[in-house]
Each structure stands twice: as C-alpha cells, then as structure tokens.
C-alpha cells in the first residue's frame, strides 16, 4: 500500500486512527503492529513472512548477544552479531540481484527494514540502545507503517524510548497533519506532474531530443526524485507524529546546497548517517591516515550506490559522488567557500543533475545517447518546437517546484507565527492544510500516472 492512494486515504488511515485512539495505552503498540503488517501485506502478501523472519532472528540474537555480553563472552557475542547482519545482507543482496536480473519482484521496503533491523542488533551489541525484551515492541519498531516502505531509516536508538513511552498531543498531531499534507502535495502534484515529463522525453527517438529538451528532462527527473522521496519522508514523519513518534529529518532542502559535501548532509540524511555510523566509522573513518580514509569513503559510496540498485549505473553513480567528495575534501571545498555563493550553487546543481541522469537511465547506450543530447554532440539541435512546447506547458509548474525546493515557505511560516496575530497562526495554517489536501485529492482523482520511484528500494 502507498500513502498517495485512495485505499490508504479512504480506508486504512481513518481505520488505524480510530482503532489506535480508541485502544487503551497498553494495546496501542499492538494496534500499530497489526495495522502495519496489513499495510505491508496488502502489496506483498508473501514477503511479509520474510520481514517477520528477519525480526524474529534479530529478536532472538539480540537476547543472546545481551546475555553473552553480561557474561563477558565477547567472542560469542560477536558471532551472534554477525549472524543476523549476514542474514539481512544476504536477503538484501539476493533479492536485489534477483530483481535486477528480472527473476523475482523486489520485496517492498527490504532496503529499509533490513537496515533498521541491523541498526537494532548493532546498537544492542555496542550498548547504544537497550535490549528490547518484548518481541512485539521490536516488531512494532521495524514494521511501523509510516516509515516501513520508504524510510526514513529510523535507527532503533531514535525511537527506543518512544516505543514504550510517548504521548500524543494536539500540538504533535497538528504538526503531523501539516507534514503529511505537505508531503502528499509534493508527491501527488509536483513529483507525479513533473515526473511524467522525463518519462516522455526519454522515450523519444534520439533525433527529436534537442539540447534544451534533454535538459528539461534532466531537470524534470531532478525534481521528481526529490519531491517523490522527500514527499514520502514528509508523510512518514507526519504520520509518525500523529501516533506520537518523532522521527529525524531525512531531507533538509538539498537543492540549495553550495557543495556536494553539503548536498549529502541534506539528502537522504538517514541513509548517509547509517553508513557513517555502521560502516565508515567502524572501518576507521579518518583516524587511520588519509589513504585509508579515501578507501573508507570509496567503500561507503560503492555500497550507497548498490543500496539503490544492483546495476552498474547505480554503482557508477555512487563512485561519481565518491570522487567528488574526495576532491572537495582535499582542496575544492575551501575554494568553494571563497567564491560567490551563486557560482558554488550552480556548480553543485550542475553535478547533481548530471548524477541523476546517470541514476535514472540504466541502459548504457540510452544513457550515452541522452548525455550527447544534453551537450549538443552528434548533430543535435539546440532548441526546437518541442522544447518550446515543454517550456510553455511546464514552466509554471517548474517555477512552483523551484520555490518548493527552497526554505521560503518555512521562512514565511516562521514570520507569520512570530509577527502575525495568533488568529493568523490559527487560521493560516489550517487553511493551508485544507488547500494542500484538496489539491492533492483532486490531482490524485484525475490521475493516470502515479509511479513510486523509491519502490524499487
């Protein structure tokens, strides 16, 4: 099931809200667990058992690790740690390869829940989190439907306390409503509307893709993936708040970045911090000399690429960023800080857009052809009637998209809350929510194109 669907909005969401708030405190987690399993199984009835298996293994080995550590049996604890980690990675690799070669469908959310399960077991081993003795509570954590399908990757330590001790308040619920409505609008209005453009452009015969058209397509994908993914994270965080949970932010206006380094502090934050804490730092980070540091960076970025897909283009995408980050780290970053911000921004976005083209097109020939169009190589016209058509038809939406990439709405909201009357705060935000919800439902109702990019992860 996905949030941007009528099945979710008309049936699932009202039902889970009703049952959750009617249930006594002790039952609330079971309600979430049950509904989350239904949510997952709705799309993947068979694979829900894979997820349950993963949870059971983590639970049992978590207990064992804890007990062994109590007895100071570090060696045994280490082995116990390795088993669920290896099993989860094996699941992940197996299904990703099977999916890439077209043999099996990819179990939804597998890249997310395996990472969450591993974060639990590693945190227990490292004493970064308390052991969870209640298997259902552990289950609630892993399957929590707000973040189950597409993140953010919620580390166990983030929510460990909240599982058994949280309070739902009007303030938090209302914040959740605002986040959810924003995310839904981003996904249904912006991501879907603009995303279709890239799909259409990419399918055109090579000689019909002028330079301008190719760039419009690249921008379209750049917007689509951001609004799709961050929109989904907004909905996840918003829904979390409706049930009293506080998840960490996953996106922080990445397209205003002035360096690739900054970009990766703002994009898919939960993934990069996961790799930092569970791969980069254990490998030694930057504490074992510069050569080793570069190797560590390369390992993390190779894995980051492959996490997105077992294709050469995803790996190349990861390594593309690896090289850029190393270059920035060694000298470029300091230079970037000295030039005017606008140039640093252009430099960053130029590279980000190119990287998305690499990410989006898996076939090597198609990719080469597209990049040629982007740079006018091979007898491509600069601009044609089609490019003009796209500019006229999608320009308005692109402008809205650009504004939505900046923190301007956040700044307006802060200003309104500070300077405006309490009435403004009590009216403007509800009205904005109503507008966003109405538009989202309208766009969803009139829809024939509703893909979900991160579904393959």
């Amino acid at each position, binding site marked *: 099931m996905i949030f941007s669907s009528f099945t979710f*909005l008309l049936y699932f969401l009202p039902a889970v809200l009703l049952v959750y708030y009617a249930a006594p405190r002790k039952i609330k987690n079971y309600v979430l667990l049950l509904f989350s399993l239904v949510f997952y199984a*709705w799309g993947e009835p068979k694979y829900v058992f894979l997820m349950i298996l993963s949870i059971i293994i983590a639970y049992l080995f978590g207990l064992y690790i804890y007990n062994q550590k109590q007895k100071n049996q570090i060696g045994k604890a280490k082995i116990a740690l390795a088993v669920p980690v290896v099993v989860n990675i094996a699941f992940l690799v197996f299904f990703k390869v099977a999916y890439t070669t077209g043999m099996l469908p990819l179990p939804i959310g597998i890249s997310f829940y395996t990472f969450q399960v591993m974060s639990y077991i590693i945190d227990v081993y490292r004493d970064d989190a308390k052991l969870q003795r209640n298997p259902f509570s552990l289950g609630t954590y892993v399957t929590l439907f707000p973040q189950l399908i597409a993140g953010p990757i919620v580390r166990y330590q983030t929510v460990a306390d909240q599982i058994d001790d949280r309070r739902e308040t*009007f303030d938090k619920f209302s914040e959740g409503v605002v986040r959810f409505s924003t995310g839904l609008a981003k996904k249904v209005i912006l991501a879907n509307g603009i995303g279709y453009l890239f799909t259409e452009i990419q399918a055109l015969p090579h000689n019909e893709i002028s330079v301008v058209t190719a760039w419009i397509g690249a921008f379209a994908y750049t917007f689509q993936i951001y609004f799709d993914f961050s929109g989904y994270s907004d909905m996840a965080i918003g829904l979390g708040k409706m049930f009293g949970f506080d998840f960490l932010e996953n996106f922080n206006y990445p397209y205003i970045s002035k360096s690739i380094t900054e970009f990766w502090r703002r994009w898919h934050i939960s993934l990069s911090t996961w790799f930092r804490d569970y791969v980069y730092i254990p490998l030694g980070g930057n504490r074992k000399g510069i050569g080793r540091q570069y190797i560590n960076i390369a390992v993390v970025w190779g894995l980051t690429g492959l996490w997105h897909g077992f294709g050469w283009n995803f790996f190349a995408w990861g390594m593309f960023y690896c090289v850029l980050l190393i270059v920035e780290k060694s000298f470029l970053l300091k230079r970037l800080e000295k030039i005017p911000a606008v140039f640093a921004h252009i430099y960053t976005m130029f590279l980000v857009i190119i990287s998305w083209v690499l990410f989006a097109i898996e076939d090597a020939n198609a990719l080469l052809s597209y990049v040629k169009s982007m740079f006018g190589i091979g007898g491509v016209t600069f601009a044609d009637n089609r490019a003009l058509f796209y500019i*006229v038809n999608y*320009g308005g939406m692109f402008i809205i998209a650009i504004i939505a990439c900046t923190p301007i709405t956040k700044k307006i909201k802060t200003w309104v809350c500070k300077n405006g009357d309490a009435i403004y705060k009590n009216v403007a*935000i509800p009205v904005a*929510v109503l507008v966003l919800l109405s538009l989202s439902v309208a766009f969803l*109702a009139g829809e024939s194109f509703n893909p979900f990019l991160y579904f393959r992860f």
Partner: protein
Amino acid sequence: MKKNIGSIITTLLFLVFIFGMSIGTMAMKDRDFSEVENRNLSSRPKLTMKTLIDGTYGKDLETYSSDQLIFKDTMVKFKNQVLRTTGRTRINNVYLCKENMFIQEYREDTKTLTENLSYIRDWCKGNLDKNHTFVCIAPNASEIYDENLPAADMNQSESVSVSKAVDILGDAATVINPLESIKEHKDEYIYYRTDHHWTMLGAYYGYENAAKHMGITPIFLNDMNQIDVSEKFYGSLYSQAPLMITKPDDMTLYDYKDLKYSVSQLNYKTGEVLTESNSFIVEEDLTKKDKYAALFGGNFGCVKITNSQPNDEAKGKSLLVFKDSYANSIIPYFIGNYESITMIDLRYFDYMTNDISKLGLEGKYSDVLFMYNASFINSDTNFLGLEF
C-alpha cells in the same frame, strides 16, 4: 491554552476532511457511468482469497475507490483547471484554446495512415472505377482553426497526410479534399467547441464541395428545416479534458421539409431489419450526454436509407458509404440525391461473414463513397476488414 487553538483547529479540520471523504464516498450510491468523463465507472470488486493474495483485489479496489470518490467529477475538473492555471495548454492530447474551444491534436501516424490508405486503394481497385469511387477526407478542427491553437503546440498539419492519400489512392479513386471550401466559412459555427466533430453546418459545406466531384446537384440549405435541438452539448473533447469553466455547444440539425425517407439498421447478410425510423434524428439521444448520437442514434454495422420520393436525378441510383462518425453529419444531405444509401461502419460490421472485398459489385451500387475524417484514417485499425 490559547496557543493550542491552532493545533486543535488543524487536527479537527484534518479529521473532518479524511473521515468526511471516507464516509461520504462509502455512503454515496455507486455510479455506473460518468457523464463528465464519458466513461463507465467500475463497480465494487469482489473480495476473494485469491484476488486478495495475488494483488488484483488491491488494484481493483483502488480503481473503484477513485472512480466512486465523492465529488469525483468536481475533483477532475478542478485538477484540470489548476493545471491550466500553471500554463498547461494540452491535456490528454486536447488543446485548450481561446474562445472556449477544445481542439484535438493531430499527429501523423505514418505507418497506420499508409496502411489504411493501402487497404482502401486495394478495395477500390477491385470494385467500381475511379469515376464512381470517391474518397472524401474531412478536415478536423485543428486544420481549420490552427491559429486558435496555443502559442507552442505539437500539432501537425493534415495536408501532408492528405497528399499521401492522393499519392496512394492515385488512379483507384477520386480524392475529395473539401478543406478550402470549408475554410471559407470558418467564421460560422462549423465545428463544435467541446466535441471532435464538425457541425451539420460544417458538414454541409463539405457536402457542397463533394457534390461537385460526384456530379450530383447539392440541395440548398435554405430548403431544409433548421432545428435547434440543444444549447447544452458537452462533447467528447470536454470529456477528455473537463474544466470547471466551459462553454457548452449549441446543436443545430437540418432535416427535410417534404421528402419522405426511411432509416433502418440492417443485418447485411440476411437483410433482416433491426430498427426502422422515418428520420435520421433520434430524439431520445438529445436527453443524454452524448448528443452527437442524435444523428442516426450512433454508429452501427449497416444502416440503409431509402428515399421514397426520388427525383429524376436520384431514381435508380444507389450509394455505398464506408463511414466513421463524421459521416453521420454529412450523409443526410445525400438522401435526396440517391434512391438508396447503404452505410457501413467497419468498426461494427461483421466483415467475417460478408464478402466485403467485392461489395461494390455485388450490391449494384452506382457510386461508392469513403467518408472519413483525417484523424480517423490516421488512427483506426478496422480498415483491415476491407480485405475480407
């Protein structure tokens, strides 16, 4: 507590919205058909273990929920109106043009076009000679009103396609291209604003031009009864891109004052008469959404029109017509020119059991007319039936 008021309002608003939409949708009776979108709406899917597990129930439930959503028509119109506000000028291959006009996009599908023209040519070669075989290609609104199209468009001119038709049909048939004649009257109400068809007035100018090529005397429009049948026609193009702000079409039909004729739907093979009427106008369709169907009641495999009072020119003459829906507006004008007209719509004709490839010779027809609009020849897939 004051600072919580906003949170309470937002929370309640959200709950009312979500629960209202949910309960409203479930409580309202299901609709079978959407007049605005001109399509059937899905009904509640049956829940079985199998369909639940293999995912088809989930898909069907989603389609059903979207179709039966409360305020669905309004939501669809609202979305399109918002898109238009952001600068969108083409929705579902329909251009949103000035003066409240919808214009369907034309883009040549060369493969389909040339295939269809070849089928027509092959049929023509095996039947009557060029002097009695006519292919009339009606232009679409995109051709007449090309300057109404938005500033940037992907529309192509039909003239390239029509020259291809002339080249391919060559010596097999006489090609009638009424474009210029019709274009002279572009300031008159010759095409619908919300529908892809020409009006009966526009069709008349096509008939006037065709008559010249066919050697028949065209009836004067003033000699016919002008009947204003509707002011609220929301046509096919509106259904493809419904907006909140639309100006519907007026519908004006022309029928004979004195001439008696009959219209029947036939089973071509057996000759069995399925329906019979004394006018091509079917009034009950005027109360439905697709008012264009008031012409002949729509499209059928075989319709025969018999002129019971043929004049000297018409006596003994019979016309065979291969048609699409544009023909419904123009063929009525031919009724006085022939003693009988047999219309065949390949989309509904049982060409498997009829020897269609030799039909022109078998029925002892004086003339054969292929009456199609350019967009149809460019896209339809039933011309293959001509080979049977």
